[in-house]
């Protein structure tokens, strides 16, 4: 049963990691436009910073 001393903290830590990741996605507006994001992945343009000098 000693293994529980490791397993429980590990499982809590991993779960917590997922929770923190979810918090981050919510806070950085990643659910504002689910439909657009699913289309943007098809676009060739790298648009993390929307207005960077672009080759025309």
């Amino acid at each position, binding site marked *: *049963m000693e293994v*529980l001393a490791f397993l*429980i903290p590990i*499982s*809590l830590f991993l*779960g*917590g990691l*997922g*929770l923190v990741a*979810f*918090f981050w996605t*919510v*806070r950085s*507006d990643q659910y*504002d*436009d*689910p*439909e*657009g994001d699913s*289309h*943007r992945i*098809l*676009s060739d*343009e790298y*648009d993390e910073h*929307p*207005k960077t000098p*672009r080759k*025309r």
Partner: protein
Amino acid sequence: MTDSTYTEPPTASACPACDAAPMARRIAASGAQDGAVGPGRLMLSLPGIHCAACITTVERALDDHPGVRSARVNLSLKRATVEADPEVTAQALVAAVAGVGYEAHELESAVLSATATDRQGRDLLMRLAVAGFAAMNVMLLSVAVWSGAADATRDLFHWISALIAIPAVAFSGQPFFRNAWAALRHGRLNMDVPITLAILLALGTSLYETAHSGEHAYFDAAISLTFFLLAGRYLDHRTRAIARSAAEELAALEVPRAERLSDNGEETVNVADLVPGDLIRVRPGGRMPVDGQIVEGTSEIDRSLLTGETVPVFAEQGQAVSAGEVNLTGPLTVRVTAAGRDSSLHRMADLVAMAESSRNRYTSLADRAAGLYAPGVHILSFVAAVGWYLYTGDVRLAINIAAAVLIITCPCALGLAVPAVTTAASGRLFRRGMLIKDGTALERLAEVDTVVFDKTGTLTLGAPILEEDDTWSDEDLRLAAAMAEGSSHPLSRALSEAAQVRGHAVDRVESLTEVPGYGTQGTWRGHRVRLGRADWVGAEAGERTASWLSIEGMPPIRFTFTDRLRPGAVEAVQGLKETGLSVALVSGDAQTAVETFARRLGIDDVTAEALPEDKARRIEALRGAGRRVLMVGDGLNDTAALAAAHVSISPASALDAARVASDIVLLGEDIAPLASAVTTARSAVTRIKQNFTIATLYNVIAVPIAIAGFATPLAAALAMSASSITVSLNSLRLR
């Protein structure tokens, strides 16, 4: 993208100080208008975008526009947000997007700011995530306890559960705690009071039991209760947020701007900035933004949105106009007599506010259920606690049983029963083009037994169509269509269309000119020809909507028009009748026009020439007779009636004031979904009641077990999950 669409704001560099004043005013105005959104942010509605290429094309076009700092398209909302320098105008951006082939409309960002970031929704989502995370972990530990962990292991697991559950509940449960506190402070009970009590009592007794190595701890029940109830809250919030954002978008599409004439020419200003005495220009096709008096120009005015009359009214110098009327033919210069608060639009809004307060008294099914439920649960658990204390004299056992009763009866199913159904029903209606603005609208719609329609703009499109008649021949139509060419008057357009449908080639008319307010005039085969108002061509004016064609030396020829039926109007009326509702028509239009129209749709109960007050009084009378009235209308003359009715619907083309007064907005042109909406609402209410029955049934079985003292944490978890899941599944069955 080229810069050709971009127009530099006019500046005269010779005198910088002269420019500074209007510029400062403009900046101040834009600052006031943007409010929380911040200056330099523009919003565009893009109804036509649907693909990855659309996003890239539109964003590139906007980015390449001079002065734009960044542009981002949101495909879910079909909207673009543009950060730009203050001198960039929305009109220029709309032109830029139109240049790459997409329809765009300016959105008033101040109206949208409320839903720009959905803070409350995000907050609920975070709490839901924490509750979900904690519930899963605690449940994992609880399963170990249920399957036989004993002594030190069980205590350890209980302690770890406490460590996870207590902070999680403290964070996630806050919406319930706040609501419960607010209710208690005002001396009332709501659904959140027993919830809060159950959660806190469960945590408290569990903590005590854990500290004394007790066998039963309810940490899993407390946290999963929070999770299920938050899920219900979040669903409810999403439904409302979607409806609110769509309603706001409709309002934001109407940017209140006016063309003000001043010493240095025309300038575009916000309607809110107009003061009595200002001169404004209203172009043909434009809507009067304020009440005023015509100082220059002649035209015809369409007052159908205000009065329901379909016949355009002649307008000339000196005549008073009121906000909401549409200018048809010639440009008008209007002196503002009343703007903002004092205008007739606003006075009507006050009427609406009065009627509105009477409707707010409606209590929803959920509230009624909570009203029965909350005191019942408290009494039950209190009686159980007192009973066990008297029987055994053991305080600890008595409190444990009271907690178990509260947890088992706790309204997981009740909390989910209503939101799950309304979410499903609103989503279904939204896909059919109906926007549910009000939370209790569905329930009220289900109770309706009488439908009152407005005519103009509601059952009709407010656009005329030429009526078949023997007063004119094909040759007459050919000539009339030629005369109508180039005029944007609705009657002229109807004539051109009628000729086109018949495949007629139009005649050639020379020196064709439009005389604003009267009609068109030209020369045909050497004769002077006129098409227009009866008194202008020398004919007797009738009460039908008509346009007259006169050829020099011949008697004038009459073309009569009827209002075009809104698509789906026949189906809607028929469907409503088949559902067993009585249908009535109340219109401000002339008696004969209304009667012929009603006969076509099969409506027997007809009231014509009704003033706005008459409409509202009619609704009141029906209500006094015990009827529950659904009012469908679009005009300013309908707003009081819309607000007075039990539930109200308006088309998206309606005036802003009418849309605000109604509970449901029809987004499309087709009105046919109306009949099915009543059916959907009725089945939604049936589902809600079924869900209540299911929840009650669970309680009837579980409560005696809890009171008898046989409720284990496992039994509580099973009862809670099972009832929540059955209720959710039942809601999905909604058709």
